[in-house]
């Protein structure tokens, strides 16, 4: 793809004392963490712990009331969502956000246009851009939707919609991926396929994954980060976290 990588080690994401408040409520109350390049982090915690809000803070959807975010040592705290995307930060959503009324291929082409052009070309029909189509087709293959390229996104099965959702984050070949429950609502029969997809796309990227299915998280993550009440409770390898009594008390004990 066209984006030039800064180097093999690129993709470090660091946050310093991040705070997000809604009215009086502190959804994220001072989180600092250094996500190392190329690692996959499983972000877990009970409902309402602030996981998605933290992700929103990293991707630019939530306004910070304090703290800073760095991508490869560049301060991106003040960058808007699209600028962070351009800086190499991809994100998928818990609730599927795809472009309805358009085909799967069109969905992905939009992503490719967004990445290739700062000023969207207005002098030529979109259908003439072969390179964009190729970008889209490549991702189409990665997420296994080639056969459904011309189907309207509204008519995809839920599992395929989740695949498209993930596919949309891959355009532009981001160094950092924030995946918010990519498996949400995916049925048992497709689970293996979906996990397989995640394994394939995370290679070589820094990934932050929110997932409720503990087995999956423990299986795929290099490191687990546990959040409770807007704060970091613990972090470490899956085994360490599993063994951490505080985590057991605060989280695992509560069940899903």
């Amino acid at each position, binding site marked *: 793809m066209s984006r030039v990588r800064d180097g093999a080690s690129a993709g470090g994401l660091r946050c310093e004392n991040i705070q997000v408040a809604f009215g009086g409520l502190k959804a994220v109350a001072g989180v600092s963490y250094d996500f190392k390049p190329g690692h996959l982090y499983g972000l877990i915690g009970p409902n309402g712990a602030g996981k998605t809000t933290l992700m929103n803070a990293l991707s630019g959807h939530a306004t910070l009331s304090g703290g800073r975010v760095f991508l490869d040592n560049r301060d991106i705290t003040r960058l808007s969502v*699209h600028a962070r995307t351009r800086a190499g930060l991809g994100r998928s959503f818990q609730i599927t956000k795809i472009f309805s009324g358009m085909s799967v291929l069109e969905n992905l082409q939009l992503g490719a246009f967004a990445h290739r052009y700062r000023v969207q070309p*207005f*002098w030529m029909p979109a259908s003439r851009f072969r390179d964009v189509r190729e970008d889209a087709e490549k991702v189409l293959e990665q997420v296994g939707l080639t056969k459904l390229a011309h189907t309207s996104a509204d008519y995809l099965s839920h599992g395929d919609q989740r695949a498209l959702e993930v596919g949309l984050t891959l355009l532009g070949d981001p160094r950092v991926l924030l995946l918010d429950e990519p498996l949400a609502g995916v049925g048992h029969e497709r689970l293996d396929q979906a996990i397989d997809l995640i394994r394939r796309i995370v290679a070589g990227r820094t990934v932050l994954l929110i997932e409720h299915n503990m087995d999956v998280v423990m299986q795929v993550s290099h490191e687990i980060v546990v959040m409770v009440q807007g704060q970091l409770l613990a972090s470490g390898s899956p085994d360490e976290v599993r063994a951490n009594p505080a985590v057991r008390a605060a989280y695992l004990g509560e069940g899903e």
Partner: protein
Amino acid sequence: MTTSHLGRLAMAAIIAAMILVPVIQTSEESLNLVSLILIWALFAIGFDLIFGMAGMLSFGHAALFGSGGYALTLLVTKAGVGFVPALGAAGMVGAVMAFGLSIFALRVSGLFFSLLTLALAQLVYILASTKLRSHTGGLDGIPGVPRPELFGIDFYDNRNYYYFLIVVFIVGIAVMALLRASPFGKALQAVQANDVRAAQIGYNVQRLRQCAFMISGFYAGVSGALLASLMFYISPQMLHWTTSGDVLIMTVLGGKGTLLGPILGVAVFEVLKEKLSQYTQHWYGILGLIFILCTIFLPNGIAGLFARKAAGRPGDAP
């Protein structure tokens, strides 16, 4: 929404036939009516770029439309600028006004965007009709808006002016067709379909909206100038919010989000108004009934009649 290939052809044929009627028929009446339709159609396709494509319901287009008209009038009569450059300037003024409105209005979204544009445009209307009356002629407006002077052709002759309008219209619709099919147009559709995702894949959503609004403003400015010139007259009435309402109704009636739908909407609206008022004094109420029936039975406007029926590739607006 999607229209079938055949449907689009049918619509294009109807529009072309309508535009050419005055060429075949000698009646000055149809000439006048078609001229009016051409101008409003230009306004409507510009309006639909932000309404149908980008999903922003602007209630402030009257301000853009009227400013264009005033720009042309003042530039030609007071500053002695030629008509064609002034027409371009009118478009620019429309775009600049749109930029001005967008600075305020784009801070909010959805319904609040509509309301804020309405309020801002109404502010412009009030200013134009009271405080700026030395420039705008107040509510009395300015009579004697000129027509073009080109190649020694007398554009004060309605037929010649009508040909002039056709040229502008064709250029306008061609550019719009290209814009809509271009990556820029697709990006607007993406913004309408899901603005959060559009930003997340790297589109600068606010800038896209702003650009679209300005292009739309350009169309509004040019069409406002053409209307003033057709009428030989301009007044703040063009800036009144009901003008925004009119263009909205025509666009919805015709079918928003399609290139040709708004044009059909304008044609049906103008023809109905013109014809009904000739045949009955109760045209007003009948027009209202037609709106009500259309809203209930034609959810996708007139263009919806030409939509493909197959369900394989569904395409109704969300």
